[in-house]
C-alpha cells in the first residue's frame, strides 16, 4: 500500500513538473517570472500587472496545449496497450481500426460541403468520420471472422483505412477550386496549436475514463495475452469483453484524433517500451503507459515548438524522430531478457 501511494505521488509530481515545463517553454522567450505571475494571477487572483498578450499565451495557449498533450499521450498509450493485448499483435496501435483515415475524410467533407455554416466544426466532422470508419471495420471484421478472428480485425482495419484514404483523395480531387499550394492535410500529422480550454475539458475526462475502464478489466486483459481460448477457459465472456474494450479504445482515439489529428508512434511504441521495462502485467502496465504517454507527448510538443525558431514542426514528426531511436535503445538493451 505504501509502495502504491509512493508510486502515485511520484507519478503526479512528474506530471506536474512536465506541465510546468510545457507552460514555461515555448516559441517566444517569456521570462519564468512572467509565467509564474500569470499562473498566480489566474489561480489565486494575485493581481500582478502583466501584458495581456503574455497572459493569453501562457494561460490560453501553452497551458491548454500541454494539458491536452498529456491527455492525448495517456489516452493513445492506453489504447495501444489494450489493442496489443486483445489482438495479440505487436503492430496493433490506435489508428489500426481505420480511425485516422475516417477522421480525415470527415474533416475534409465538412470543409468541402460547407457544413461549417451549420455549426458542424471540422473536429466534429473528424469525430463522426472516425466513428463511421470504426463501425465499418467492426461490421466487416464480424462478417468475415467466424470465431474471435484477430487477423480479421486487423485486415478489416487495413481495408477500412485504404477505403477512407481513397475517399479523402477523391473528395479533394473533385473539389471545385484548385489548390494554389501543395500543402495537403497538414492537420493529419497531428497538431496541438489549435487547442484551447474547451479541448482540455473534453480530452482530460475522456483519457481518464478510458484508463479507468481498462484498469477495471486489467485481469481480463492479462488473460487475453495468452489468447482468447485461455480467456474463455477462465470464464471470461470473450466476444462481449473484446467488443467493449475495442469500442472503448476506438472512442478514446476518435476523440483525440478529432482534437489534435493523428499523432503517430505514441500508441504503438510507449506500450512496448513499458512492457519491456515492467513486464506484461496490466495492473502496472496500464497506468505506467498512460503516464509514459503523457510525459512523452508533452516532451515532444515542447521540442516541436523550439527545434526551429519561429516555426512549429508537426508534433507527429517529433514523436517519430525521438521515439524511434529511444525505442531502438530499449529493444537492444533488453536483448536476451524475457
Amino acid at each position, binding site marked *: 500500500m505504501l509502495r502504491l501511494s509512493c508510486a502515485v505521488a511520484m507519478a503526479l509530481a512528474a506530471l506536474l513538473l512536465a506541465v510546468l515545463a510545457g507552460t514555461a517553454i*515555448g*516559441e*517566444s522567450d517569456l521570462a519564468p517570472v512572467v509565467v509564474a505571475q500569470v499562473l498566480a494571477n489566474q489561480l489565486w487572483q494575485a493581481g500582478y500587472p502583466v501584458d*495581456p*498578450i503574455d497572459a*493569453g*499565451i501562457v*494561460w*490560453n*495557449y*501553452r497551458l491548454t496545449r500541454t494539458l491536452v498533450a498529456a491527455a492525448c499521450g495517456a489516452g493513445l498509450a492506453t489504447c495501444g496497450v489494450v489493442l496489443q493485448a486483445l489482438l495479440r499483435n505487436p503492430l496493433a496501435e490506435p489508428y489500426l481500426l481505420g480511425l485516422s483515415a475516417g477522421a480525415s475524410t470527415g*474533416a*475534409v467533407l465538412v*470543409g*468541402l460541403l*460547407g457544413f*461549417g455554416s451549420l455549426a458542424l*466544426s*471540422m*473536429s466534429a466532422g473528424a469525430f463522426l468520420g472516425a466513428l463511421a470508419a470504426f463501425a465499418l471495420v467492426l461490421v466487416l471484421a464480424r462478417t468475415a471472422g467466424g470465431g474471435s478472428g484477430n487477423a480479421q480485425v486487423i485486415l478489416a482495419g487495413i481495408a477500412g483505412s485504404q477505403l477512407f484514404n481513397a475517399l479523402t483523395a477523391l473528395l*479533394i*480531387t473533385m*473539389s*471545385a*477550386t*484548385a*489548390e*494554389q*499550394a*501543395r*500543402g495537403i*492535410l*497538414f*492537420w493529419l500529422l497531428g*497538431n496541438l*496549436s*489549435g*487547442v*484551447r480550454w474547451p479541448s482540455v475539458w473534453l480530452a482530460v475526462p475522456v483519457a481518464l475514463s478510458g484508463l479507468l475502464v481498462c484498469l477495471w478489466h486489467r485481469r481480463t486483459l492479462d488473460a487475453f495475452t495468452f489468447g482468447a481460448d485461455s480467456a474463455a477457459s477462465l470464464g471470461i465472456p470473450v466476444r462481449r469483453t473484446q467488443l467493449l474494450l475495442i469500442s472503448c479504445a476506438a472512442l478514446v482515439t476518435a476523440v483525440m484524433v478529432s482534437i489534435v489529428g493523428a499523432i503517430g508512434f505514441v500508441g504503438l511504441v510507449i506500450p512496448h517500451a513499458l512492457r519491456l521495462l515492467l513486464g506484461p502485467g496490466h495492473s502496472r502496465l496500464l497506468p505506467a503507459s498512460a503516464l509514459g504517454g503523457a510525459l512523452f507527448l508533452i516532451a515532444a510538443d515542447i521540442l516541436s*515548438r523550439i527545434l526551429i525558431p*519561429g*516555426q*512549429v514542426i508537426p508534433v507527429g514528426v517529433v514523436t517519430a524522430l525521438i521515439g524511434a531511436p529511444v525505442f531502438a535503445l530499449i529493444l537492444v538493451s533488453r536483448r536476451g531478457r524475457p
Partner: protein
Amino acid sequence: MLPRFATLLAGLGLTGLAQAAATHYPLTIDNCGKPQTFVQAPQRAVTIGQASTEMFYALGLGDRLAGTSLWFNNVLPEYQAQNAKVPRLADNEPSFEAVVGKRPQLVTVQFEWMVGAQGAVATREQFDELNIPTYLLPSDCEGKDNLVGADGTRLQAFQVDSIYKSISQLAEIFDVQARGSALNAELKGRLDSARAQLAGKDLSTTSALFWFSSADLGIAPYVAGRQGVADFMLRTLGVRNVVTSSEEWPTVGWETLAKANPTWLIIARMDRRRYPADDYQKKLAFLHSDPVTRNMEAVQRNRIIILDADAMQAGIRLFSGVQTLSAAFASGNAGQ
C-alpha cells in the same frame, strides 16, 4: 473592362507600332533551362494555371486559347467576355490526354509541379515527344527549386521582372510585341504610382503579417515568409514582414505572431472553402475573439486589410494588390 484595354490600344496606336519589332520565325527562346522553338505563332494554346490564362487575356490573346485549367477562382470581370468563348478542360489539374487532345501548339504552365520533373500533369519531355512546346512562367522556375519543400523553395527572392519577362516572351511567341510592351508599361506604372502614394511617409517602424489560411481555425496559420510574392509587395512599399522564414508559405504559431505584434494584418479573401479559415470573415471573427490575438495592436486599432489571395501569387493581379496595400498604408485605415 475597358480602361486597361483602352490604355493598351492607346499604347498600340501612339507608340507601340512604331517601337515594336515583328517576331522572326522560327523563334527559339530559353524557358526554364529548356530551349523551345516556334515555327509560327501558335494558333491553339492550352493554359494550366489561372495566372497564365489571365496573361493571355491581358494580351488580348483569348482567341488563341483552345482550353484552360487549374482555376483558383472566378476570372477577372474584365476578361469574362474572352473567357466565355474558351472551353475549360478542368477546374483543377487537367489530365495529360485532355491537354494533348486539344492538339495545342503551346502549353503554358503556371507551376512547375504541374508540368516539370515531377509534374502532376506530365513531364516536359512527354510534351517534347509530341512536338508540343511548353512555356513555364519564369516566376516559378527562376531562382526556385521545385523539388525541395512542399511548395518548392525559392533560392532567391521573387523578382517582379519575371512577370514582365513572361509577358514579353508570350508577346514575342505570338508576334504581338506592341501589346506586350504596352501591358508591361502599364503594370510598371501601377507599381510606381503605388510607391508615389507613400512618398515622404516614414514607414521605418511599420510592419505587416500576411495570413493566407489555416488548416483549422486556431491552429498555426499559413503565413507569407520572406522571398515570396507577398513579401515582395511589402518590400516594394518599404514595410517589414514580421515573418522571417525563407519558406514561401510557412506555418508559424500564433504565439510567435502575437509577440511580433505587426502594425498591419493582411488577410486573404478566396473562393476556396477547403478549410474554415479560407473564409475571411471567419479569420476576422477569430482575430477578434481569440484571447491572445484580440490584444494585438493591429486588431485593436482595426488595421486589418482584406486582400484577394490571387494578388499574393505571381501574376498580373499582384499589381492591384500592391495598390490596395499602398492605399491602406497611406491613409492609415484598412478601407473595408
